[in-house]
């Protein structure tokens, strides 16, 4: 139970890939113009993370150290192609809005990083959980950022209108510069809160 709690809290909060480790910034900046894009990309990455972590963990004793990186890339690329095929078939609108960033999941640092630092050294179940929580951490950050940017720039969330965007909207938040500003603010606020939590936990442990 303690291990599960640690993996979950690491993935979601303390080692959140987007807001703590600042990994996968390219899709984070480009795709958070809408909350639906964020959740779509996040779930695609989560699926690839879980599947590649499981397979890499299963094959960790078979894959020689010398070819581990090409082997990881091959495995990750296979699952990304699976996601691509499924999305094109069943979610064509999301597939077209994610565009080039979907195949680029292959070179996403989060996935390769977790394969190298976690799945290649840990058992299958733990690796699957790590993939799940890291993916959910990424999805949460992407969706939250997408929601904030969509509300401010379009007056809507998940394409549902909250107010008339003609009467009030800050188009800047829909632009690339707005993405950097939002991302910076998110990192600052998240780290401030997490550092406070960590200090509290450290005090508790000291007592």
């Amino acid at each position, binding site marked *: 139970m303690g291990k599960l709690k640690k993996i979950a809290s690491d993935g979601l909060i303390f080692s959140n890939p987007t807001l703590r480790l600042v990994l996968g910034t390219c899709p984070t900046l480009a795709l958070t113009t809408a909350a639906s894009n964020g959740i779509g990309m996040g779930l695609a990455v989560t699926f690839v993370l879980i599947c590649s972590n499981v397979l890499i963990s299963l*094959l960790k004793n078979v894959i020689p150290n010398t070819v581990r990186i090409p*082997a990881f890339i*091959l495995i990750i690329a296979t699952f990304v192609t699976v996601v691509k095929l499924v999305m*094109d078939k069943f979610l064509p609108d999301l597939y077209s809005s994610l565009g080039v960033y979907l195949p680029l999941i292959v070179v996403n640092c989060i996935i390769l990083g977790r394969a190298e630092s976690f799945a290649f050294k840990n058992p299958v179940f733990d690796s699957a959980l790590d993939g799940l929580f890291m993916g959910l951490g990424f999805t949460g950050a992407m969706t939250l950022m997408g929601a904030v940017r969509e509300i401010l720039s379009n007056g809507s969330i998940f394409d549902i209108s909250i107010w008339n965007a003609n009467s009030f909207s800050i188009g800047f938040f829909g632009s690339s510069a707005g993405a950097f500003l939002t991302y910076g603010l998110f990192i600052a606020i998240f780290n401030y809160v997490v550092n406070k939590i960590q200090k509290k936990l450290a005090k508790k442990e000291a007592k």
Partner: protein
Amino acid sequence: MKQYVKPITVMLSIILLCGGLLAILSDLLFVTQEERINRAINKIYSGEDVKLEQTIDLSTVDMTEFNDLGVIKACYKLSNDDYLVLSTGKKGYSNGTVTTYVAIDINLKVRNVVEDSYTGQTLMAKLSGLYQSFIGKSATQSQEDISEIVTGATKSANAASNSVYVALQLVSLVIGG
């Protein structure tokens, strides 16, 4: 030599395993042209009962004078007498192209445009509202007129407007006989 045997065997096994899985899945999840057309029809006529009626034979239509601007891939007659044209517009940013489904009514006016795909660095064609600005444009308008309607026109928007323009010209030739 022995040290290379295991890595090569492992890599080949992974390639075979992944390749096999992808071969099966791409067969199962293949999106047919008919499915893509129906998706475009549903997007354009959401809520309306419109169906594909016939594929227009393009072998008798001479579109060579428009080859610089775009290429017609297919043309379909729909159950509501509209035409649906799959056309590719050229001269996008960095020689990119934009392929669109253009629905044109019997009066030779654009009913709606849906993007199918794009190549090259034509991401700017995804400017919101770009395709909606073509609605109501007519086959009698020149290519420049159609391009000019796009506010803040970019090279990519140029490819999209070329795609719409050649589609309008094709339907005008088809209807005109």
